[in-house]
């Protein structure tokens, strides 16, 4: 097991492509996506509907350095479009050890 940062991001569906491009740019490979999430925040209710303006939940496990870079590229997107980013500690069960 290896200590990692667990980054959890809630963004609008339409920004997902953009976020993945940013992750590519800073060399973050792994992420998990849960599509079709709803929610409520400062900008009101977001529910999955015809408009494709629902939420997507993204989870990224990475080391502390990468986490800092992820936060750096996510922050302006959050600022522009809203959403949430939580960072916590976790242990990653490595396959081989």
């Amino acid at each position: 097991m290896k200590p990692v940062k667990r980054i959890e991001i809630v963004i609008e569906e339409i920004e997902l492509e953009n976020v993945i491009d940013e992750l590519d740019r800073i060399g973050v490979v792994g992420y998990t996506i849960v599509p079709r999430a709803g929610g409520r925040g400062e900008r009101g209710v977001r529910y999955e509907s015809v408009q494709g303006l629902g939420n997507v939940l993204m989870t990224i496990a990475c080391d502390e350095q990468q986490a800092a870079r992820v936060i750096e590229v996510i922050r302006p997107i959050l600022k522009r479009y809203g959403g949430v980013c939580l960072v916590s500690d976790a242990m990653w069960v490595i396959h081989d050890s």
Partner: protein
Amino acid sequence: MFSLSSMLIPAILFFALGFFAQLVRSDLKFPPDLTKALSIYLLVGIGLHGGMELAKVDPAGAIGAVVAAVGLGLGLPVIAYLILLLAVRIDRLNAAAIAAHYGSVSAGTFVTAIAFLESLKVPYESQPVIMLAIMESPAIIIGLVLANMARRGNGNGHDKRVSRELVHDAFTNGSVVLLLGSMLIGAIAQPAGLNKILPFYETMFMGVLSLFLLDMGMEASRRIGDFGKVGPSLLVFGIAMPLLGGAIGLAVGHWVLGFGVGGTLLVAVLAASASYIAVPPAMRLAIPEASPALFLTLSLGVTFPFNIVLGIPLYFGAAQWLASQ
């Protein structure tokens, strides 16, 4: 002849049922994927039908419709924007976002108008379908331009990228691709093959539409909760703008394009209706400062039900009156 009973067509009644179900807070809910499936079906169905009709028509005759569509798509959002700024007096970014919705069109309203015409056995021209496909795009571009003008000075690093993305989206979004693609298929596919797929796309069409409108009735009704945020002057805009758009559409259909009553009604509906599928995500990307609660409530909660229930018969009456002059 037009009478009140012409409002008792299933399309409108199912819309009303959905509206009512949500109003009494029934737990009835369509899975969102069903809504998407129904939309895809309807767009392909409209496109195929339109393509087959267009193949019969002199292609030169379609050019006028194309030009008119681009004109409406560029002109209407500018008119809406000015009204929003000068009369309703909201901020420029929200005005730009809302205006783009009114330059674009609602395929659901368009198809309901066709159901209305068919129940009255009124014939209609085939060109408005191309206009439907074309009018999705220009309004998005205009919305972007208006927003960039509004924002000039307080530049934002993302803009170029977003602009490129949006111009791309304007021409490749799902509705446009489905409509144009299936129009092309309807026009060029061999008739034997087309006849095999028509039982699905034509015979079922009005039934599927009724299910779609049941769902859209619920969607519209769900927006009522945000009427407070929208405020009275914007709500008035949500009814006045389709009336103005409808009048412009009537004029274009009747005088510019020389359509009969049916075709004129359809052009009026194109001009009067506001997008709630392609434009909202585009404007959310383009103008994150604008409030979705405003543009969605207006297009989906006010203008859409107004057009379905009152607008269509009204524009139809006007089209009949014009034709009788």
